């Protein structure tokens, strides 16, 4: 498994902020960005699996939940950690995300300081603390 983080985000501002937040906390991994759901699935199909997928819910073409369902439905990708990173904190979104197999749900705070803190925690957890799935 690579040390790549797959960020699926269509908003360029959010993309910059997320990358910056991850960098700020010293996560040096390569962050690969895909800007819509279909592209994200194409990437996953064509590349080595990333350490974690940071997935926005509201995406052009295929939205986040559909992407999540496809990932979990595909034997090859079903164990990839997926963290939902979104603006919404609707209960319904949270519940459906987890029920479709998301590993975590993080709401992007408006305040960048908080956002940076959230990204740091995320990175630490998924990249450093969490045991990697053994390669088969």
């Amino acid at each position, binding site marked *: 498994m690579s040390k790549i983080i797959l960020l699926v985000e269509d908003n360029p501002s*959010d993309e*910059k902020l997320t990358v*910056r937040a991850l960098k700020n906390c010293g996560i040096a991994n390569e962050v690969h960005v895909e800007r819509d759901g279909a592209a994200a699935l194409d990437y996953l199909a064509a590349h080595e699996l990333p350490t974690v997928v940071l997935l926005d819910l509201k995406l052009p073409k295929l939205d986040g939940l559909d992407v999540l369902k496809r990932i979990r439905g595909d034997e090859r990708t079903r164990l990839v950690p997926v963290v939902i990173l979104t603006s919404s904190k609707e209960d319904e979104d949270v519940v459906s995300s987890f029920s479709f197999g998301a590993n975590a749900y993080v709401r992007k705070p408006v305040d960048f300081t908080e956002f940076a803190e959230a990204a740091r925690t995320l990175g630490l957890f998924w990249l450093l603390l969490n045991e990697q799935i053994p390669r088969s």
Partner: protein
Amino acid sequence: MEIEVERNRLVEHVRMLVDISYELAAATDDSRRVLELAARRLTELVGDCCAIRTVTEDGEWLEAGGAACHRDPQLHDALEAVMLSGRQRIGTGMSGRVATTRLPHVIARIDPAEFAAASEPRYHPLLERLAVVSSITLPLVCRGELVGVVNLLRGAPGEPYDSGEVDLATSVAEHVALAIGNARLVASERRARELAEQAVASRLAAEARFARLSDCGIIGTLVCDADGRVHEINDALLDMIGYTRDEIMAMNWRELTPPDWSHVDNLAAGELVRSGVGGLREKQYVHKSGGRVTVLVGSALLEGYSTRSVSFVLDLTGRRAAEVAAKQLREERMFRALLESAPDAMVITDEAGAIAIVNTRGEEIFGYSRDELAGKPLELVLPDEERGLRRDGTELVIEQTTSPLDYDGKRWVSRSIRDVTERRRAEAQRGRLAAIVDASDDAIIGKSLEGIITSWNPGAARLFGYTAEEIVGESISKLIPVLANSEEREVLAAVARGEVVRFEAMRCHKSGRELAVAVTTSPVRDANGRVIGASKVARDITEKRQSEYALARAKESAETSARELEAFSYSVAHDLRAPLRGMNGFAQMLLDDYGGKLDEEARDWLNEIANNARKMGALIDALLSLSRVTRSELRRESIDLSHLVRAAAVHIAGSSERVAEWEIQDGIRADVDPSLARSLVDNLIGNAWKFTSKVAVARIAFGEIERDGAREFFVRDNGAGFDMAYANKLFAPFQRLHTMREFEGTGIGLATVQRIVRRHGGRITAEGAVGAGATFSFSLPAERA
């Protein structure tokens, strides 16, 4: 006819008595002649034969002499030979015993063996020869003294003696006894003094003759002068006219004859003077009570007097009265039976209104026995015309018919009373039901099991457009669209089985318009429980259908709006926040990366941009949460509010350095929506925490109290409080009682709280004072009504 025969016989009877009396009176001086005359007369009257024997002076024996007579001359001698041949000891044999008891002895139908046993052996051959079938043996008593015995015998093939013959014989015997007594008196007088003149003796005898007329006879006897002065009268006659003997002695006998009958008396008086015998006549006397007594009278002049006569009076009224009485008795019995068998209570009251007679049904209805009611005022059981009163105090509704009843010279009232309490109740019930049926907005239709309409209420007329006159007798199919006819057959079949069928269907109005109706068809049963028809209640649901449709459309459109709102909220959440995040983030990044190259003022402005973006984010969040309160469906669960409060406290104060005392009552649960409950608690605790930020030691309490019988929860703090004058502004969105500089906030938190409480059907109130803290009290009823 019978009465006529009886009457003729009585007339004959009296005529004979008159004759016999006259003859006997004429023969008083010769006792032998008296006996022979008597024997002959009795034989003629009641035959077949008669023997009269007198008592000896010492009273011990029936004398060997006397008189005997038989219709048949051949038997006459034999009878005389046996009957008069020897004396008979008083006390022995049939005649001897009658002499002792002085009571008549009548054997209407003789049992030969028994008769033989009762009579002396020496008479047996005679009795056999006479072939006796019936006998009368009478004592002859004069002035209390037994003077002789009369034997009357009838042989085969004659009829047994009847009561009329016995009466006649008894009357004649009384006269015979008197004649014998008088003859003896005359004889002894003559013997004793031998100086009495014939006339004097005769007069004496005549006076004595009637001195003591039998007081027990059924025939009245009177001795009176032509001028009406009464000398002798017997009890029978006194009974007939109702006076006492003393009263009559002081009166004039002629007063007793009403003027309209005096001509009859006058005729008889003339006859009496001419021939010595007054013709037999029917006339009336005035009874003491004022009533009339109809009598048959025969008179004879007394021997030795020119104006004094003896009259025999027979009470025809009495005879008739007996007939009438018997008839009355029969009628009374029938009347009784009629009375008792009447299905209604019968009450007869007298002139004073007192109860005289009550029948069995009357006893049943009123609960009294007839003895208890007798003599009581009618009002006891009938306080008025339409009400009855039972003994137990319950009232009856009655119907009565009254009719006057003239009886015994009085005016009575007969009442027939029917207890109609139940019937009236049933009628009232039926009336009410009919009124309900008439007033019903629903169509109520009766129909036979063949589907023929039998009744039709105004509701049916309104619903279907037909009047009752138009439709009763028609088939129900007139109301049913052709396509639904088979369905009606099924319904009738189910009703015939006793089922109640409810359904909604289309029906036809008279105009041809179709109606949507809800129908309930139920079986109608007769008293034996047999289904004889159906009742059908139909309600127009066309409007209901329309309103249901309208409602469905409104609901649909509301749901559409809700979905649109949902989508809107979602984009607000997602899309509005993203630019804010950009504003804040890039301002922050600018500060981080290039802060050193900017002066103080520029840095401050960048901070303002970042802060404002953050605040707008918070505002959007708050608005979303407010809209979520109304948007989300309420889902009730038993939630531990104490636990939520504690969690909120930990969350909010956990990392704070402020000093706070929390007083959280344990185990407070409520049936609430879990997510809304959390929002409620977070907002209230957050509010309390925020407004206590300026006090040295924050005191925040959560608990439960009871107010007006309902549970109420409260969150109390010792913070900044508020002016009660603005309490109403507290819960309005975006209303703030404090400046942003004092306390940050969106102004939406308490609005959200109020909405959550209201969605649960509860109320929230706030109490407080500036600088003295605030208390928010709210209720969360278990279920919304």
